[in-house]
Structures are given as structure tokens and as C-alpha cells.
């Protein structure tokens, strides 16, 4: 097992990895930017190295600084968390060259999954259903027209280098096609440095279902069941849950098997997530695979009792998975609400100093956060402040616990998305489990209408 791990991240996920390392008796090295000097991940790591100023590009995205920190502290492994460099195959390669174990898949698999068009092809080859679309990047407007003729609308342009819901553009008619093609390419180039885009059939109303996988370095692969993440706003997940109410046990086993086969086909290692759209006929279409830990991993941990981050570390250290597929048992239902430092109506970020931070625990509540009274929510980074996770014997108990926890949460000094979550948790369609990825659009329109009506 490793002696010392560098955590190339900040915020709640850096603390999450520290928790795992402490439980395994592994020393930790935090890296931080100057404004994060007083952050908890710095305080609770065994060592800490300042790697640059506030801007991510100069610190948390700065590969040379991160690697230098790893070298001067003599770590034997590096955990990238999510976001920042977590999907950087380059970092994984440099780690390999420096004899530091990168806790994640091989760089080759990371590159494959990082190119969405290639990943799509690889999955298709492995027998996984994908949505009809271009067979690779669309290089010209003429090609786009031909594909559109062939497939019909609606379609969606996606950046091959995209991910996390960025770089998407829906097209509903030939009139929209040219502008969409050009802006999609321009956006992709601006956002990811690569202008390649591909086309795919767009399903208006579908559910976002993703399957968590663990794969060791000896060919052992298990899935930990699915998560439902259909409550999204502009492709940003707000609420995630496990299991999905839309799946039957049979479907669960089927999609699980599909994912295991796919993971084996690409020689996937470590933890990863295969994301699917499920249409109203319960057909699954692969959309992308995330070769890293995900924000919403706790809901799976709550129902399976498996500590995904510790498994990642064990796998990276060369251990075999300690359980087989039939050893993965689900219990109850878990829901996660992402508490962001944002205005709940406008989603404008609300950085600042948190004066009061009190989220009571009690039965079934897990809180993953870096926040505490007196801490600063930095304008430099992601607005995620806390993840409140509720576990119950069934979905309705999980919802009741989440409502209770949010109703009793006291966070002062910044605005948070808690009021939005409270409203969603009272929505009849949400409670009934009858929703898809268009839920938030409808919900928000109604919520704003109600708010305005109240204000009058």
C-alpha cells in the first residue's frame, strides 16, 4: 500500500480523499493556491505545498507545479479528485514518467474517453448501443447537411473534447444548422482548444442514467449499480439519486452487464462512470464515460456500503477487488443535493465569507463539505460548497430526511441553492419519480412564475 499520497485538488473532494487516506493509514500532501492557505484540506493534510496564485490555470491546473510538489514531498501516488486535472491524460503520463502512481485509469483509456467521438465509436464496437450520429467529427457544413438529411431532427452538436455538460448545441431544423455548426465549433475551440464537433440524434425527453464501475488491475470488474441524474439545469446536475425509480431489477442487471463488458473491452481500470440516456421505451444509449471519480459518488456509497475512494486507492496499489459482483448489495435509497454558493433563482455565484454554517446530521444524513463558520467561498473556483446526502429505507424516507436536513440547515453570509432544492423536493412530479432531463426547465418556469405572483 502507498505511504504518501498527493491530492491534486481542493474543496470537499480534497477532504473526501483525506478521509479515505486517513482510514487507510496513508499520509497526505495537500496542494493549494495562495487564497486557499487557510482551507481545511490544507489544515488536515499531513503536509501542504503552495503551488501558485488564485487562478486555477496557475495553480490547480498547473501540471509542473503539481508534479514538483509531488517530487519534493516524495509521494508515491497522486489522487486527482474530480474536475481540474482529473481527466488530464498528460498528468497521468507525467506521473508515470516520474514513478508516481496516478490514481485513475491508464492514460490511453483517459485519452480514449476524453475524445467523445472516439469513445462513442469504441463503445459501439464493444456492442453498446449509441445514438445514431456522425461516425466521427463533422468537418464541413456540407457533411452536417448530409447527416441531418439522413437522421432527421432534432440533433445535437457535441464537442469531441467536451464533457461535464459543456459544448453542446441542439439543432431542430435545417435553418438552424449552419449557425449551430459554426458556433458549436467556435465554442468548442474557445472552451477546450479543439474545435472538433460531432452530431448525434437528440432525445428531447430522456433520463440520465449512469453506472458506476470498479475495475482492478487483474481483470476484476464490478458495477455498483446506477445513479439517476436527470435533475439538471443546462446539463449541470443538481440532484442525484440511487437507485433510479425508472429501472427494474432486470434492466439493472442488463445495463450492469453491458457496462462490465464495455469496461473489459477497453481494458478499463480503477473507478469510472458510464453515462447513458434512457428514452421512454427504456432503451439505453451510451453518451460518455467519465474516467474519474464523480461528484455524486456518495449516493452509490450510501446504498452499497462500498467506499469508492478507498477502492480507487486499493486498486491503484495493485490490490484485487475484495468482492465479486454478487457481493455488491444495495440497501435503501440515497439522494444527494448539491449546495452551491449561488443565488437560487438566477444562479449567479455568491462567493464570500460564511458567517454561520450549521447542517445538523442525525439519522441517514451524510455531509461532505469544506465549509465551516468563518471560511471563505472563493470566487476563483467552483461554487459547490456542500453535498448533503440522505439515505433512507426507501425513496420517500430519503426525501423526507433530505427535506428535514435542508429545512434545518443554517448557512449565513452567502446565498445557496438550498431554497431551490427545498422547492424541488416538494414537487409532486419529483416525489412521484416521474421526471426526465427536461424537468428543470418546466420546474423553473413555474417556480419563477409563482415567485413573481407572490411578489405582486
Amino acid at each position: 500500500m502507498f505511504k504518501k499520497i498527493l491530492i491534486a485538488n481542493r474543496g470537499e473532494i480534497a477532504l473526501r480523499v483525506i478521509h479515505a487516506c486517513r482510514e487507510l493509514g496513508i499520509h497526505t500532501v495537500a496542494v493549494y493556491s495562495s487564497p486557499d492557505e487557510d482551507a481545511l484540506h490544507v489544515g488536515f493534510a499531513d503536509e501542504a505545498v503552495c503551488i501558485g496564485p488564485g487562478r486555477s490555470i496557475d495553480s490547480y491546473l498547473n501540471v509542473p507545479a503539481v508534479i514538483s510538489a509531488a517530487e519534493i514531498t516524495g509521494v508515491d501516488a497522486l489522487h486527482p479528485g474530480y474536475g481540474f486535472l482529473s481527466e488530464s491524460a498528460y498528468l497521468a503520463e507525467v506521473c508515470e514518467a516520474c514513478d508516481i502512481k496516478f490514481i485513475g485509469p491508464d492514460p490511453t483509456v483517459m485519452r480514449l474517453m476524453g475524445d467523445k467521438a472516439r469513445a462513442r465509436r469504441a463503445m459501439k464496437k464493444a456492442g453498446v448501443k449509441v445514438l445514431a450520429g456522425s461516425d466521427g467529427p463533422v468537418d464541413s457544413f456540407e457533411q452536417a447537411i448530409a447527416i441531418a438529411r439522413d437522421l432527421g431532427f432534432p440533433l445535437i452538436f457535441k464537442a469531441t473534447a467536451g464533457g461535464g455538460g459543456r459544448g453542446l448545441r441542439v439543432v431542430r431544423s435545417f435553418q438552424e444548422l449552419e449557425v449551430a455548426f459554426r458556433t458549436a465549433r467556435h465554442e468548442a475551440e474557445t472552451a477546450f482548444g479543439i474545435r472538433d464537433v460531432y452530431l448525434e440524434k437528440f432525445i428531447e425527453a430522456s433520463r440520465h442514467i449512469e453506472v458506476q464501475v470498479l475495475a482492478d488491475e487483474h481483470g476484476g470488474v464490478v458495477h455498483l449499480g446506477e445513479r439517476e441524474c436527470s435533475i439538471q439545469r443546462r446539463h449541470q446536475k443538481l440532484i442525484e439519486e440511487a437507485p433510479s425509480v425508472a429501472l427494474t431489477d432486470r434492466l439493472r442487471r442488463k445495463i450492469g452487464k453491458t457496462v462490465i463488458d464495455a469496461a473489459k473491452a477497453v481494458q478499463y481500470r480503477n473507478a469510472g462512470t458510464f453515462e447513458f440516456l434512457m428514452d421512454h421505451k427504456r432503451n439505453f444509449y451510451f453518451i460518455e464515460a467519465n474516467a474519474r471519480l464523480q461528484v455524486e459518488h456518495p449516493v452509490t456509497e450510501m446504498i452499497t456500503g462500498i467506499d469508492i475512494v478507498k477502492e480507487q486507492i486499493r486498486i491503484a496499489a495493485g490490490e484485487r477487488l475484495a468482492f465479486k459482483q454478487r457481493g455488491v448489495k444495495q440497501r435503501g435509497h440515497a439522494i444527494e443535493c448539491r449546495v452551491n454558493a449561488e443565488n437560487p433563482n438566477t444562479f449567479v455565484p455568491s462567493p464570500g465569507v460564511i458567517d454561520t454554517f450549521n447542517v445538523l446530521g442525525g439519522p441517514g444524513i451524510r455531509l461532505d463539505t469544506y465549509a465551516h463558520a468563518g471560511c471563505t467561498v472563493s470566487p476563483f473556483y467552483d461554487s459547490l460548497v456542500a453535498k448533503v446526502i440522505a439515505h433512507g429505507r426507501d425513496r420517500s424516507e430519503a426525501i423526507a430526511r433530505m427535506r428535514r436536513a435542508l429545512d434545518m440547515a443554517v448557512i449565513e453570509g452567502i446565498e445557496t441553492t438550498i431554497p431551490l432544492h427545498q422547492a424541488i423536493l416538494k414537487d409532486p412530479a419529483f416525489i412521484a419519480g416521474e421526471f426526465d432531463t427536461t424537468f428543470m426547465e418546466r420546474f423553473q418556469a413555474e417556480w419563477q412564475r409563482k415567485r413573481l405572483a407572490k411578489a405582486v
Partner: protein
Amino acid sequence: MMNLDEIRRVLELAEEHSLLELEVEQEGIRLRIKRADLSPQASVSPVPVPELASTVAEPLKPVAEADTDDTSKLVVIKSPIVGTFFRAPDPKAKPFVEAGDTVGRGQVLCIIEAMKLMNEIDSEVDGEVVTIFVENGQPVQYGDQLFAIRP
């Protein structure tokens, strides 16, 4: 004017009265003290405070110093990157600079190695090297003090 003895007596008083902080200001003199709370029964602090991480570079003691009566106008050169500090281009060579040397703006003061790359760190000003904060071969992090230079 306040002399050491007076200060000592104030400190004794502070201790005797279990003061945590004391501030006196008069006739242009300002004395401010803050004591660690050591009393075991104090309801203020002796609690399982989490061990703070021992940062890689502990508060640095100057390695070499020239002259220190007037520190007010010193320019401090800080590390712009994370890496290992070297005072000379190779182990056998002489250091780029020593305390007391006069250096010119843009002159190389040291090398910081990061990812096998040798990054030369230049002086930002003309002046005299007053302090060298880091020992040869030591790791430094972003923002660590390297040199103090009197322009």
C-alpha cells in the same frame, strides 16, 4: 520611554492575571502582547485542535545574513514556482551570489528545479544581497522567500 525591564514587568503582570491579550499605547509607544493560553482549565483552547499540517517549508530561518539594522526598505525575492532551490549552476560550481554581494537587476540569483527543468531566478532590482533564506538543495513552494535585497 519603555525599557526591557518595564516590558518584563508588564509581562509578569499579564501572566499573573491570566491575560490573553494586552495592548498599551501612550506617548507614541504601543505595546501589544498576546499570550498562548496554557492554563489547563481554561475554557478557551486546550482542546483536540487538529494537528495543523506541517508545511513543507517551516517558517524559514535566514541561512546567511549581511547586515540587518534597517529592514524597512528590503526587496524580498519570492519563489514563483514549486521546486528545489539551488544556489549554484551545478554541485561543484560556486554559488551565484553570497550575502553581501552586489547584484544587478536581471542577474541570476539561483536556480529552482521543477520537473527536471532548471528555472533561473533573476534579481528584480539592483542592490545588495542582505539575506539568503533557503539552504542549497531545499524544496521551496510558491511564494516562499528566497532572497532579501537592499536596493
